[in-house]
């Protein structure tokens, strides 16, 4: 036993084993056996000669010595206590080790029952529980120990043993250092990091609130849209807010808009709803936020808020709505005005709310998106404005042609189309001068008026281009007008913008009677109709989607009208050109209005009339006209929509989806696509359907307008924008708009629209978008993103090219949204109505264009689109560099800026309405319209299975974009299909839209869309080139640019579009 112990204790020690022969082996004692056989590790035979050490090769791994083989084993320098297990050595400080000692000695304590005794009264116990003090007071402990144990603590509260007290004196040095210390403290405490950390501690939000993406649906879309559109990062919280706000805004807008007037529904509801649906969250935001925000911001803060914050989207909507209102009443009024006059008041209220709350913040991010939405709305607005312009020009050209083409769609469409075309023309003109827009709006009552009112200024520019683009009417308008109008329109737009706000307001006021009524419920000519429309719109608001379908139909009609309108527009253009673009626009708008009132054929004449009217009281009249016309259109649309209610309902269902991220976006896009501008509407209708439904027409119109706008704007606007940095454009536009420079606004809008359109196309096409988008693209992209916020936007923005399709779809959505916003604007405000009208007009124009294309060639349209796309691409190339920027960067920066600026511009003038319109309508709207159109086109493209996909894909996008846009426009024109928004949406995504659209409307629509698209493309190129020049030409520098671009673009587009249209029509 002891042997075992001792041997064990020496394990691991070096030992020398002397064997019998005297040899000595050294090694590490490894182990032993019971027989005392030993094992050495790393053993070597120790040579007698004390050599240094064993060499590696001399060492054996281990050696086993039999107990009989060794004589003696020596372990040197053994520490007997080395391996001794000591408690402290092992686990002396574990609980078990510690307790082992004590517990070992002391048996377990005897447990004693606790006896509360006398002391334990509930009170005392409670007192113990309620004793907040954290145990004993240190002094009590010290005293207790001192008293009971005689231990005196040496504790020194000054901790003099550890620190040195700070000796205060008044020496300069000390004061310096003290100041320095305070400064450092301030710096630290004021640092973001510090605050962030403190905030973490003070964050009252629950984790649920912090990390749960409750409104992910909407938010995602929005987020996408926002992100894409604006690049800006929106904190989830804010995002949700925005989303919520947007959502609310949408709802509000719809409600607001709806309540306000038929336009409201059409606008806010339809647009908003559309937008919401389209952009999904973004759109929602945009829609809700944009519209409202834009209105509010737009008017007052529009530029900043919208642009800066998510407002963009909101602005757009708001803008649309606001615009109308703003124009007539003022920005704020817009939303209200929509309801009331043009919802200027209502818009304002709604807008403001949205805008204020979410608008601004989101605006910036969404701004772009919103812009698109705005564009959409703006598109509407712009459309309206564009419509105005367009209507003026387009009316004759786009509007009329569309109408003529609209024939397919039918009376309603024709009416719408007419209205739209006119509107678009007007819008275009309106842009230049919202007056025109107003006039346009009248012509394209709802669209024109709304846009005219608000958007007109902003949108006007955009719209006009868009409008013109769509049909070519824009081009024609611009072509005719463009050159003149471009400037004039720009000027007008600027004027309108500045005036727009004012004019819008004034117009509303002036026209307001009409507009307000028209917008809200149809005023002057169409007043009754408008009223009806408004009512319808309201209904539609509730049943937007239904309306969309109707809108689609209306779109078709519009397209037809547009075609007619184109003709008329041409005439108008001629007139417009001669008279004044503004006047023309107004005329166009008036024509539109008249057309709207009359629906199809009337639209043309109306457009002319409107033009004349516009000339008279361009803005006002235009707005009024627009509004009225829009209203009429809306009404008609509404009626149609109602008729199409079933379809719309379908769409609505689709829309719901569309509203949802994809669905909405798609739906909107697709719808919008179908009717580029219409699509937006359509989308809106889908998404908004219920709401928009009433507006449906409006929405559709809006969509159309957007589309129209898009086309025209895109090409012109895009180019201009391209040439001119997006930012500049936006700024200018914004400024101009703000200044109440309708022209600028229009231009901007147009530009934006164009851009948007371009972007969309480009995005859709990818290259085109990129190309065109550059500046616009960015804006557009941004817009589109906003509009499309949902998926498209995000993607778009980032990947315009790649996502172009998406973008388009988004755009489409955005358009839809835009459309919706515009519609809202139109509905709500005069401007709103105008916007709506404008949208309608635009849509009409778009439709017209599309229709023309359709009539002539569906595929051609696509080709055109493609061509545009190519153009866009080319542009894009220039832009391409920009694209990256533009899409995202620009969108974020420029786009926002543009949007903002646009919005701002619009805001100034139309403030609320304009804001919405401006934001949305102007830059966004225009862009959006364009984009939308593009998107729509894309969507349309999708419709044509290949196209759509392509658009979606982007690569195809180019061609597809345009094609899609056209298609979309067509769809819009098909409106019904568009309304089928779902289909459109689907289309946008892919063939869904087509399926919906394609079937009945698709082909025709597609062509239409193409037409529109093409025009844009042409215009864009033209715009791009001419844009610059025109811009200078335009009175307002900004406007000039904007206008010129738009104008040129419009002209180009219009020309092209017209030519195309004519060709097609022919």
């Amino acid at each position, binding site marked *: 036993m002891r042997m075992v112990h001792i041997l064990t204790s020496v394990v691991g020690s070096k030992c020398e084993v002397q064997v019998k022969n005297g040899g000595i082996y050294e090694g590490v004692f490894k182990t032993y056996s019971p027989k005392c056989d030993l094992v050495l590790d790393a053993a070597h035979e120790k040579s007698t000669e004390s050599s240094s050490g064993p060499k590696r090769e001399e060492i054996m791994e281990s050696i086993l010595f039999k107990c009989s083989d060794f004589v003696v084993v020596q372990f040197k320098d*053994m520490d007997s206590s080395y391996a001794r297990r000591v408690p402290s050595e092992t686990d002396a400080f574990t609980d078990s080790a510690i307790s082992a000692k004590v517990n070992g000695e002391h048996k377990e304590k005897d447990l004693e029952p606790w006896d509360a005794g006398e002391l334990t009264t509930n009170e005392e116990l409670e007192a113990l529980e309620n004793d907040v003090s954290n145990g004993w007071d240190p002094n009590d402990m010290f005293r207790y120990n001192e008293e009971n144990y005689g231990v005196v603590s040496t504790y020194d509260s000054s901790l003099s043993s550890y620190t040195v007290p700070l000796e205060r004196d008044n020496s300069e040095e000390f004061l310096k250092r003290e100041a320095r210390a305070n400064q450092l403290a301030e710096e630290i405490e004021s640092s973001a990091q510090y605050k962030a950390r403190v905030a973490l501690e003070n964050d009252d939000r629950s984790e649920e609130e912090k990390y749960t993406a409750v409104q992910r649906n909407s938010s995602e879309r929005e987020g996408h849209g926002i992100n894409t559109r604006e690049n800006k990062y929106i904190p989830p919280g804010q995002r949700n807010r925005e989303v919520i706000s947007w959502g609310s805004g949408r709802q509000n807008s719809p409600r607001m808009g709806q309540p306000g007037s038929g336009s409201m529904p059409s606008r806010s509801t339809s647009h908003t709803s559309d937008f919401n649906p389209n952009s999904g969250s973004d759109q929602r935001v945009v829609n809700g936020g944009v519209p409202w925000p834009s209105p509010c911001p737009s008017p007052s803060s529009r530029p900043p808020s919208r642009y800066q914050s998510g407002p963009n989207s909101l602005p757009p909507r708001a803008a649309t709505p606001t615009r109308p209102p703003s124009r007539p009443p003022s920005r704020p009024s817009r939303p209200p005005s929509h309801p009331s006059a043009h919802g200027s008041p209502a818009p304002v209220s709604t807008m403001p709310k949205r805008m204020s709350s979410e608008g601004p913040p989101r605006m910036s991010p969404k701004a772009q998106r919103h812009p698109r939405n705005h564009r959409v709305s703006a598109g509407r607005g712009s459309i309206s404005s564009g419509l105005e312009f367009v209507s003026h020009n387009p009316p004759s050209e786009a509007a009329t042609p569309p109408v003529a083409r609209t024939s397919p769609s039918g009376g309603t469409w024709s009416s719408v189309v007419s209205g739209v075309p006119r509107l678009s023309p007007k819008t275009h003109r309106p842009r230049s001068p919202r007056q025109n827009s107003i006039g346009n709006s009248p012509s394209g009552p709802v669209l024109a008026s709304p846009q005219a009112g608000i958007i007109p200024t902003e949108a006007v520019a955009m719209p006009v281009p868009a409008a013109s683009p769509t049909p070519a009417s824009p081009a024609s308008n611009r072509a005719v007008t463009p050159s003149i109008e471009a400037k004039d329109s720009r000027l007008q737009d600027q004027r309108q913008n500045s005036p727009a706000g004012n004019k819008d307001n004034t117009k509303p006021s002036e026209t307001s009677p009409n507009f307000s009524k028209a917008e809200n419920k149809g005023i002057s000519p169409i007043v009754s109709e408008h009223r009806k429309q408004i009512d319808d719109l309201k209904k539609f608001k509730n049943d937007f989607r239904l309306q969309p379908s109707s809108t689609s139909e209306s779109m078709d009609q519009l397209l037809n009208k547009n075609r007619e309108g184109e003709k008329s527009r041409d005439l108008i253009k001629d007139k417009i050109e001669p008279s004044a673009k503004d006047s023309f626009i107004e005329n166009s708008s008036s024509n539109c209005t008249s057309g709207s009132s009359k629906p199809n054929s009337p639209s043309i004449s109306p457009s002319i009339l409107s033009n004349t009217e516009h000339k008279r009281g361009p803005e006002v009249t235009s707005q009024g006209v627009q509004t009225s016309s829009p209203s009429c259109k809306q009404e008609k649309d509404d009626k149609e929509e109602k008729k199409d209610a079933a379809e719309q309902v379908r769409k609505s269902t689709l829309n719901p989806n569309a509203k949802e991220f994809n669905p909405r976006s798609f739906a909107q896009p697709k719808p919008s696509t179908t009717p580029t501008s219409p699509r937006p509407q359509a989308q809106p209708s889908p998404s908004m359907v219920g709401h928009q439904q009433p507006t449906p027409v409006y929405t559709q119109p809006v969509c159309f307008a957007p589309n129209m706008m898009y086309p025209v704007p895109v090409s012109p606007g895009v180019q201009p924008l391209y040439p001119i940095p997006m930012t500049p454009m936006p700024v200018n536009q914004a400024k101009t708009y703000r200044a109440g420079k309708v022209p600028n606004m229009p231009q901007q809008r147009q530009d934006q629209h164009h851009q948007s359109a371009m972007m969309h196309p480009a995005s859709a096409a990818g290259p085109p978008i990129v190309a065109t988008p550059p500046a616009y693209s960015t804006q557009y992209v941004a817009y589109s993103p906003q509009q499309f916020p949902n998926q498209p936007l995000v993607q778009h923005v980032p990947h315009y090219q790649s996502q172009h399709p998406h973008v388009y779809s988004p755009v489409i959505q955005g358009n839809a949204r835009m459309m919706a916003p515009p519609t809202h604007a139109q509905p709500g405000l005069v401007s709103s109505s105008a916007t709506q009208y404008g949208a309608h007009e635009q849509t009409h124009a778009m439709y017209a264009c599309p229709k023309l294309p359709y009539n002539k060639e569906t595929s051609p349209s696509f080709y055109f689109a493609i061509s545009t796309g190519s153009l866009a691409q080319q542009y894009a190339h220039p832009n391409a560099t920009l694209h990256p920027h533009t899409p995202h960067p620009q969108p974020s920066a420029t786009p926002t800026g543009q949007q903002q600026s646009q919005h701002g511009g619009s805001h100034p003038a139309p403030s609320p309405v304009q804001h919405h319109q401006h934001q949305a309508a102007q830059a966004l709207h225009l862009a959006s319209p364009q984009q939308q159109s593009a998107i729509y086109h894309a969507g349309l493209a999708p419709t044509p299975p290949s196209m759509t996909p392509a658009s979606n894909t982007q690569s195809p996008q180019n061609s597809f974009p345009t094609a899609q846009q056209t298609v979309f426009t067509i769809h819009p024109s098909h409106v019904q299909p568009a309304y089928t928004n779902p289909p459109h949406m689907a289309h946008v995504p892919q063939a869904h839209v087509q399926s919906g659209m394609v079937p009945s409307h698709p082909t025709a629509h597609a062509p239409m869309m193409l037409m529109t698209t093409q025009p844009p493309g042409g215009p864009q190129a033209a715009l791009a080139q001419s844009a610059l020049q025109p811009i200078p030409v335009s009175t307002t520098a900004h406007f000039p640019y904007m206008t010129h671009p738009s104008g040129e673009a419009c002209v180009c587009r219009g020309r092209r579009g017209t030519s195309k249209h004519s060709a097609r029509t022919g």
Partner: protein
Amino acid sequence: MAAPPGEYFSVGSQVSCRTCQEQRLQGEVVAFDYQSKMLALKCPSSSGKPNHADILLINLQYVSEVEIINDRTETPPPLASLNVSKLASKARTEKEEKLSQAYAISAGVSLEGQQLFQTIHKTIKDCKWQEKNIVVMEEVVITPPYQVENCKGKEGSALSHVRKIVEKHFRDVESQKILQRSQAQQPQKEAALSS
């Protein structure tokens, strides 16, 4: 022989014997295994360390003249429990050390180098041979002839610390040599004196 029954040697008794190698051994009995005829003795440390002792395991089969110098009647102290794991780890490290040393030796490292290595190893376990270089903590490399100036590496606490060790090592070696000389001289003096 007061050894308890069954035991021939009482623990604690002083025993002396002579091996077949004609080696005289003496020590205190620690244990005796009758089966194997193994006797364990504890002798004063050959190195003179106070708390250490040499343990001799003697195979009585090859021993003669076993004498019990003085017997011990007291009961031996209880055996302390042993930390086997600690012993096992010691065995492992000892083996590695030896192998490492052998590696160095086989590599032709000078005695001074080996000594230095041993010295450093006492303080810093993280040292190893790399060819003829001593690598300490993967940072400091000591190249032949292993002087202070041969310590190279990134300037820092590690290098300075190693240098201190090396410096002290050679200082100790020097002092030891002097001591040895003095010790060697003393006998001579004594012899001289005696003579």
